[in-house]
């Protein structure tokens, strides 16, 4: 028998079974959809938090001050060193005149500078780090400090590390809660599918007694699970898209949803595909675990 023939057989049988057991199938679709809805909140909020923290991290700059004696070769060497570091995103040269201009906005400092009679500032480099770089920068800072012509390097170490830790924590909490919800749903889906399988145990026993190959015994059940998961996933996606388009304003008043609703279009598409994949995964895994039950294995 060709692969296509087998595939056609499995698809047809799985679909027929799905229609035959409408009750359990509906229950599974509802369980999958509600699970995915919860997961979408975790995923969306985690993604939203991630973005917010990343943009906060972006604001942390590393400032490098040159000594007044620093010459052009010192500046070039330091710039090259920064350019070769993968954590560095953007490097901008700020001359002491530009820095002075900026400080003059504050009347207090302007008065002090006038009293000094000369520009006390030095040339500096403003370094913006790459998005998502959460590791320590101590090694880079130390290297820069040792470079000739560098007077000082300044960066908000503790704030930077706090933001990095928060970012990691948000991700882990999101994954942890999402994983818990997924596993709970998997348990429920698997048990509901076990009930559906029990209702059809006579059919399964006939197959086993006649020596049906594994793909014939398992294929339709796994496909049925996949279909139920897919339907649950599609329902969730339709619901979320409706909320995003229609009920956006009304739902923004509830905490957390504004984070979710504020995601850009690309993230939404990614979220939808993830949810569909998770739905199918939930259905297939649920069916797989149902087929591992002892009484099913004893029939084989």
């Amino acid at each position, binding site marked *: 028998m060709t692969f296509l023939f087998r595939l056609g057989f499995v698809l047809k049988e799985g679909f027929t079974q799905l229609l035959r057991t409408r009750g359990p199938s509906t229950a599974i679709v509802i369980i999958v959809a509600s699970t995915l809805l919860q997961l979408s909140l975790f995923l969306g909020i985690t993604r939203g938090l991630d973005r917010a923290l990343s943009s906060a991290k972006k604001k942390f700059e590393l400032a490098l001050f040159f000594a007044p004696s620093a010459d052009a070769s010192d500046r070039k060497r330091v710039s090259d060193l920064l350019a070769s570091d993968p954590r560095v995103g953007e490097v901008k040269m700020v001359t002491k005149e530009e820095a002075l201009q900026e400080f003059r906005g504050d009347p207090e400092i302007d008065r002090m500078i006038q009293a000094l009679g000369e520009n006390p500032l030095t040339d500096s480099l403003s370094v913006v780090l790459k998005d998502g770089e959460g590791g320590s920068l101590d090694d880079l800072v130390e290297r820069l400090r040792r470079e000739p012509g560098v007077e000082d390097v300044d960066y908000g170490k503790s704030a930077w590390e706090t933001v990095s830790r928060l970012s990691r924590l948000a991700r882990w909490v999101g994954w942890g809660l999402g994983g818990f919800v997924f596993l709970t749903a998997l348990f429920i889906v698997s048990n509901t599918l076990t009930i559906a399988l029990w209702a059809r145990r006579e*059919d399964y026993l006939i197959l086993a*007694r006649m020596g049906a190959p594994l793909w014939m015994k398992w294929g339709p059940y796994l496909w049925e699970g996949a279909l139920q998961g897919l339907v649950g996933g599609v329902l969730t996606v339709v619901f979320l898209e409706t909320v995003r388009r229609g009920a956006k304003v009304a739902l923004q008043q509830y905490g957390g949803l504004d984070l979710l609703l504020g995601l850009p279009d690309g993230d939404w598409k990614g979220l939808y595909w993830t949810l569909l994949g998770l739905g199918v995964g939930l259905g297939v895994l649920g069916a797989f675990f149902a087929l591992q039950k002892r009484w099913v294995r004893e029939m*084989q």
Partner: protein
Amino acid sequence: MMIQGFHLTKVHSSGAKVLDDAYFSAPEGSFTVVLGESRTGKSTLLKMFGGEEKPTSGTLRVDHLDPYDLAPSEKDRWLRSVGVIFPDLELFPDKSVEENILFILHMKGAPPEGQREAVTKLLSKAGLGDKGPARPSDLSSGERRMVLALRAMIFRPRLLLADDPFQGLDERTWSVLLKFLLELNKGGATVVLSAGPASFPEAAKKAAQDRSPRYVKLEGGKLLPAEEAVL
């Protein structure tokens, strides 16, 4: 397929001993009828040959293999070359008669071309030409038994085990079924069927004569050889 059984003993979990140091032999291509009163262990014996009832002790070889010693996937493959007509091995209730038989052809790995035509032809040969779309629940008990038999025979198994296949059938139906069984045997398949004293009538014995059937009787857990069988 050839069947050989030595010192076969089967004790059910209830403690009842249905086979007691029994011997059995069915050469390849033979037609064997196991006769016996009800509850003498005929079904158990046939299920034992079909890989469903492991002997408590003794040696069983079907085609030189011990079906109880095979790995699950090997056993599935082996089972696919055996046709069984067991009353408790029902039809799929939600499939039509035609789908039930087609399903077996799919399962046994028959080429997909011409399957539907073959099923239609077989059904009409069995006098069930109009029953193709019917559900098993719409069939009479005799019709259902005939469909069970057709399902077991359509893929031309090398071994056919039929547990009391004529039980409750009218004369016309059992004679059609016997004709199928004999045809299959003529094609080289080994056929072992069981029957009660009343379910294998004289007319059946006469009709089967051409195939030189071997008769054995199961009594008190022993299989009596053909010459000792009370016919």
